[in-house]
């Protein structure tokens, strides 16, 4: 079974600084997708960024970018120019690329605190 590990239960960063959230995963598959979701205090899950395993180029969405290291099975999220609205729980997630729509495997999350 696939597993997703987020080793940082909590991270803190000063507003306008850069922070990196770590995620590692375990899989024997070669075709898969990786995601970062944000869950603010309102609880609603928001898709932040997505990476296809077959793509070597790291995904980027505005201030959010990933460092995808396929051989190391590492998928970290970098948030540049942190803003107060970035404060939330961040979840890393994995999905197989082929087969049924059996949803995602989530990590336990990292609580990101933004200090003004």
């Amino acid at each position: 079974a696939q597993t997703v590990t987020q080793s940082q239960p909590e991270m803190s960063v000063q507003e306008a600084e850069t922070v990196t959230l770590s995620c590692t995963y375990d899989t024997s598959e070669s075709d898969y997708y990786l995601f970062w979701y944000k869950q603010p205090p309102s609880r609603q899950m928001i898709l932040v960024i997505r990476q296809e395993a077959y793509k070597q180029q790291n995904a980027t969405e505005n201030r959010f970018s990933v460092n995808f290291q396929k051989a190391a099975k590492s998928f970290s999220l970098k948030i540049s120019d942190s803003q107060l609205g970035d404060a939330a729980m961040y979840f890393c997630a994995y999905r197989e690329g082929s087969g049924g729509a059996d949803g995602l495997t989530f990590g336990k999350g990292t609580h990101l605190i933004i200090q003004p």
Partner: protein
Amino acid sequence: NAGVTQTPKFRILKIGQSMTLQCAQDMNHNYMYWYRQDPGMGLKLIYYSVGAGITDKGEVPNGYNVSRSTTEDFPLRLELAAPSQTSVYFCAVGVSHQPQHFGDGTRLSIL
């Protein structure tokens, strides 16, 4: 557009009671999912559906049932509520094999 609507937002049940968590979407997405989130944990998949009339088990289906008679609705049924089912439940929808849009969640307590 309402997106994904979950009702109720909060509910307290007694052990052994039953209830249905409602999920409705107006996005016309084929894929629908039910997740539960326990404190300090990520989401775990309960059931999912790839279209009307088709449902399948996820990682933690025991104690739950679903149906998908229409594209819009995907209710989750708890038949005999147990304390272990105390959790926050999220419904999600997507156009392919991943949830893209989530509801606001239902906080359920079993006492």
